[in-house]
């Protein structure tokens, strides 16, 4: 009986000690806006990662699948002057050990931008000028495709492409100021 009392007393101490204070807020209403460049580790950008992105790792990056798509806002002035699309990513040695190289292609509104082949491990940047004609809407859906990637089950349960950190548009560069006379 003494032991049972001890046990109950223990639980009685435990339970109030664990009470939470005040209701927890799980929802944020506010107004959110589409970005023209997304850091894939930013939770606010998740809605713009349309497909082919695995979960965030190390709070910094995400693996992609062989095909991946994002939605970006066209930067100001892009509908007149175009913009530069860029993808910052890493190609790990583990991938290149299994495939000699991979070619990344971006497609906007059915128009394919010039592909680029990557065959060295490390950080890379894919950059392409996008003509104004492809940047007329407010929301631009961009589809990326790698010609070679690791199928699910080869190195991981997931299909693995590249490790992406940032995808976005750079606004058109302002015209250089006229030299002073």
């Amino acid at each position, binding site marked *: 009986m003494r032991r049972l009392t001890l046990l109950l007393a*223990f639980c009685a101490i435990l339970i109030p000690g664990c009470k939470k204070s005040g209701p927890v807020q799980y929802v944020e209403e506010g107004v959110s806006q589409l970005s023209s460049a997304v850091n894939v580790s930013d*939770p606010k950008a998740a*809605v713009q990662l349309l497909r082919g992105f695995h979960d965030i790792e190390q709070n910094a990056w995400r693996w992609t699948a062989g095909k991946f798509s994002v939605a970006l806002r066209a930067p100001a002035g892009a509908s007149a002057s175009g913009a530069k699309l860029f993808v910052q990513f890493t190609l790990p040695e583990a991938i290149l050990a299994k495939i000699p190289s991979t070619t990344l292609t971006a497609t906007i509104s059915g128009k394919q931008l010039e592909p680029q082949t990557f065959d060295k491990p490390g950080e890379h940047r894919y950059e392409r000028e996008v003509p104004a004609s492809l940047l007329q809407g407010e*929301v631009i859906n961009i589809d990326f495709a790698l010609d070679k990637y690791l199928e699910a089950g080869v190195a991981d349960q997931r299909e693995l492409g590249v490790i992406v950190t940032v995808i976005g548009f750079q606004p058109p560069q302002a015209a250089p100021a006229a030299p002073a006379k």
Partner: protein
Amino acid sequence: MKRAAAWGIPAAACLILYWPGLMAWFAQDDFAWLGLRLSIHSWPDFWSALFAPKAQGTIRPLSERLFFLAGERLFGLEAFGFRTVVFTTQLLNLWLLTRLVERWTGSVWAGMWTALFWTANSALAQAMSWTSAYNQILWPCLLLAALHCRTGWLRDGSPRARWGEWLFFLLGFGALELNVIYPALALAVTLVLAPRRWLEGAPLLAVSAAYAALHRTLATPGGGRVYELHIDGSMITTLGRYLRMATGIWRQEFRPEWSQWLDAAEIAAAMGLAAALGLLALRREKWGAVGALWFLAALSPVLPLREHITDYYLTVPVMGLALAAGIATARHPLLALAPACAYLAGSAAVARETVEYNYERSQLARTLVLGVRQAAAAHPGKILLLTGVSSDQYWAGVNDNPFRLLPGVEAFLAPGAEENIEKHPELGDPARFVLPAPAAVRAVSTGKALVYSTAGPRLRNVTAIWKGIAAERWKGDLAAVVDVGQPLLAGQLLEGWHAIEEGFRWMSEHGRLRLAAPGAAREIFVRAFRSPEETGRGDVEMRVFVNGLEAGRAMLAAGQGSLDFAAPLPASLDRSAPLEVELRVSPPLVEPGDGGRRLGLALGTAGVR
């Protein structure tokens, strides 16, 4: 005082080590169990909910069904209530174990060490941090209580102890099927305490055998290949894997940067354990042999599951090894110091890693489910669409459909949300939670639905962003898959449909509907049901036509509840144009009375894939 310390030390270690488990929320199967009450509308439903075999052919009325039914009634979605029950049971386990070993060996400290070694083993981490694994905590409680009674009965001949053993033994079957091994443990204890009475355990064995036979007849293991039994040489390999895992330090999936320290701890612990068993054997200490037999007996039912090796199955078996190690440590504390410290540090590190992982996983589910509840309360009557759902979040918090636990809440994955979720076909298909694009776009544009991103520590209203993306991405009016019980897709139904009833619709003898252009889809599929109460109709035939061409036919036999029809799309179809699908069912079911409806089949979903 000594006894209080002997229990207090492992109890304190348990609380410190598994503290995140006490604070954990629900995840995965927990939601399926929490939803059990939704299937109960009558007493027969209640009995079926308690005793009908479920996933993997399990029947655990006490540790799963009743535990969740009562817990949900008492605590609702407050996981802390459930967790408190789990922890209280474990503290009771530690007390029972400490006392039992003391009664057997006469050493309070042997009891203390046994309980400490057991509770520190990382095999317990899953059970201490995931409510669905309560069976692994409740069963040892009943097992230890039964062994206490047996010990009392063998020593004093007390009839109360005899009946107590039977009570706890029988209750053990309600906690876990592995309870069939209890007669082996009872026999081992009898051989040590009163060897001449060894035959008196025969009735226990008869009950275990009868239960095993009954269980095999009633419960058919599901889960496919993973739960296939392999009664062959592979059981030796499986035993080897479990032996290695029994130190609590080696886990194939957990190799941190400092794993060389874990390897060293594992070697020290394994050598210490082998030395303990050897030493007890040399000294003819029979409890050492009981410990080894305990391990083998408690593990034996899962050895044929070579495709499903999991640390969680070691929860009770490692208690046997803890017994041997505990006795040896109490007898030779100085010799045991180094391996004991290595074991406790290594196993506790692995256990903590598992508990923290489960805690984090449960928090993902908590943010998602409680976020949906709050959003629904802030926007009553609105449909909620979820986007930005991570793979971990989906598999922890959506796949077992927690939203049905929230009255009045209609929540779906937004179209496209499933495309960033890892596929695990053996666990489920995220697509079944997706509201088809045309319905979602329509609902958002008419203000009937709001879109929330679940990425990050809170749900964020991203309706405005999503609307813009969706307008670009999904321009068609028709869904490729139609849930005929979804009002937002009613526009795709042509003639031959009755009103919606609880997520489905009856069709009449003929039902027609429209689907989006098939594009690259290869087959048409239909999921249909018939009422289990209908009589006199016999077998029912369903024929499926696509744009007037017959795609296939299927029979739904009397007594067969559901039909999953799938057939290739006719080769001559124009794949760029919407489809018109016609279903013809014969014979119809005619409802009694004037104006009774003519019913074909109840439909769930139809579509192309």
